[in-house]
């Protein structure tokens, strides 16, 4: 049996790395006595698969994990049992049974929706942000292999972005960004570039990033992995 689980990573646990998160979920599976299947071979591992790592420091209510079970378990019961034994901040939100033949989520997800909160907004933030997006190209430098820097145009990876809540103390941007294995934009890179563009390059990162969900392209447009799992 294959189950796709949607979960959240919030609060203090935002600082754990992807590897640590995986280990935490694996241990919770054991505590909750979930009949998860194990790989064969010398060093058997639980058969789980995860979506691309969420950068350390971000929170999310749209993370996904694939689990193969040895025997049937009601997906809701799985969530319930897991939530009893998970540390604060990691919560399973929904789970659905999916067809075992379906391709891996990892390869299907291409975009994610983010809410980015700036606590100390840049002056004339809305205008500046619009100007920022109006550029044909937004070039950032990335450290590549062997210490070489690469130049990347991130503009095509910003599919949608706009200010949804504008206040003096915190301003919230909603953005849909490429988050796939082929094309990937880290929201921090976009924000750092924007802050530099707005002429305030030396302020410390006073914004937080929250991932709302991930998206898969389908015949019916962009849908979430759970919708996809249900046959979208």
């Amino acid at each position, binding site marked *: 049996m294959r189950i796709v689980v949607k979960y959240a990573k919030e*609060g*203090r*646990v935002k*600082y*754990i*790395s992807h*590897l*640590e*998160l995986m*280990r*935490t979920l*694996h*241990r*919770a*599976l*054991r*505590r909750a006595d979930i009949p998860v299947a*194990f790989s064969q071979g*010398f060093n*058997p591992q639980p058969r789980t698969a995860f979506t691309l790592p969420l950068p*350390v*420091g971000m929170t999310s209510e749209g993370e996904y994990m694939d689990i193969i079970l040895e025997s049937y378990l009601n997906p809701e019961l799985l969530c319930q049992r897991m939530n009893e*034994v*998970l*540390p*604060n*901040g990691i919560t399973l939100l929904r789970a659905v049974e999916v067809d075992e033949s379906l391709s891996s989520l990892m390869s299907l997800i291409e975009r994610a929706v983010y809410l980015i909160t700036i606590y100390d907004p840049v002056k004339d933030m809305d205008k500046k942000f619009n100007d920022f997006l109006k550029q044909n190209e937004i070039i950032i430098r990335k450290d590549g292999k062997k210490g070489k820097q690469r130049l990347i145009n991130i503009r095509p990876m910003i599919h949608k972005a706009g200010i949804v809540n504008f206040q003096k103390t915190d301003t919230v941007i909603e953005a849909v960004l490429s988050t796939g294995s082929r094309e990937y934009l880290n929201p921090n890179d976009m924000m750092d570039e924007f802050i530099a563009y707005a002429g305030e390059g030396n302020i*410390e*990162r006073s914004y937080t990033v929250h991932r709302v969900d991930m998206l898969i392209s389908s015949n019916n447009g962009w849908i979430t992995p759970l919708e996809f799992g249900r046959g979208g």
Partner: protein
Amino acid sequence: MNKAVIDRIIGQVSKPVRYMGNEYNMIVKDPSEVLIRFAIAFPDVYEVGMSHLGIKILYHIMNEREDTYCERVFAPWVDMEQKMRENNIPLFALETRDPVAGFDFLGFTLQYEMSYTNVINMLDLAGIPLMSRERDKSHPFVIAGGPCAYNAEPLADFLDLVVMGEGEEVVNQLLDEYREWKKNGADRQDFLIRAAGIDGVYVPAFYDVDYNEDGTIGSIKPNREGVPPVIRKRIVRDLDNVYYPETMIVPYMNVVHDRVTLEVFRGCTRGCRFCQAGMIYRPVRERSMSRLMELARELIKNTGYEEISLSSLSTSDYSQLEELIKQFMDEFQSRRVSFALPSLRIDSFSREFIEEMIKVRKAGLTFAPEAGTQRLRDVINKGVTDEDLMNSVTQAFELGWDNVKLYFMIGLPTETEEDLDGIADLARRVRACYLDINRGKQAHRLKITVSTSSFVPKPFTPFQWVAQDSIDLLRQKQELLRDKLRIKSVTYDWHDSELSFLEAVFARGDRRLGKVLLKAWEMGCKFDGWAECFNYPAWQEAFRTSEIEPEFYANRLRDKQEVLPWDHIDVGVTKAFLWREYEKALRGELTPDCREICHGCGISRLGGGLCP
């Protein structure tokens, strides 16, 4: 406000998880509902501290109490410390992120000497006056325990209280006493007096030390009435009935021992003469098999760990080991819980034993002959022969191992070049054994690592009187060995002799070293056990400006009459026994395992355990 800043700076440093808390099984309490707040402190980074069993036990014991909330604090790594100082964030506890300066106790566990500067640094970061005499009623009591606490004299000026021995029972007595004192509202001194009345509790300020002209100690005496002249360590008599947590915090980080740890017994009867643990943790007390199985079940259930390890000073000495392993395998193997056995002794490998282990996991094997010749192994009472080693190695190779590590000490008393040759000979024989078993075909897969550390004479051992080899001599020996070990498939690594020298100074140090610690800390020394932080020139400077010769402590041979800085501490094993063992060592005479015959070490005065 501070907490928002903490949250922000955590995001700006390496390994933020070290400061995050919020692990599964972390205890959450409302601090306003407890009478006593205790910060248990480990003077090293999180992942080292969280591997330590003692801290976990004490954490849960104290939190069992309704009147107490025990939280954890570790030494912030250099980058975090810098951020904290820049933002005026004082040392805070992981659980509530409250400043520890506002707690009732700050309790350090002292596992190794080279963490002492971290103790001072943590006090400073907390904003607690460094010296015990400078603290007042608004400050926490600074308390210490752990193996180095048996001679915590170099830290005497910084500590208010020291607990000698096993903490499980003492800690409750201490907290009860504190509760009474807090209700009465008496002054700070009054609590110290009450505490000094508890067996095993040492208040350094209540003792005066005077010195002879030659720099040795004249006497150590209580400076007030009602304080015991000798402080005897505490032990737990019955391990089955003492508290052992059935749950443990599960760190997110990959800590050093990231698994369920089951303590199968305490103490050791082997009597290796260099080994402090073997002397100070006596007597041997075992946990019953049924209790161990019960704990294993609960702990696996409550932590979700995928591995269990058995811990003790020499696990193969557990009287029912084979049966225990069998039961573990039966119960846990199908649940994919694996099994680790540290501290195996080379003379104890039986073939079935290794086969059992290999079923579950295959890792590199470490053998610790400690010395290169039989003569020197007799001196240190390591009852292991070349033949034992070769037998075990043969079995390991036959079972398919290609990777072995051989561990030795250099600078042991009476060592000569012949003993160093012996190390190279053993490495050669191990290699030949592999080639023989594998018919020379797979020579390229073989990897033998020879690793040496420099001997550090420790208090409460038969070698507490001996002089450590000088840094220069140790270096010469390392160079000699490097030449002698130019052998195919063999690599040689060794420990820094400067670090071993400082360990030797502080292990057998007295109160006069407090000012050196302070000076070294002022000059920026911290995390001295970490190669990237260790600054030996700063230490040399600290000794110079304090006008203290470190060689007096490390490289001087003591005589039988000398008053040692720890003579007012009774660890059970007597000085007379240690001296007898020292003399036997110099004669190369063995003292067999005392499970066979009691040698009258003195520990039986404390009761409990397997002693006759």
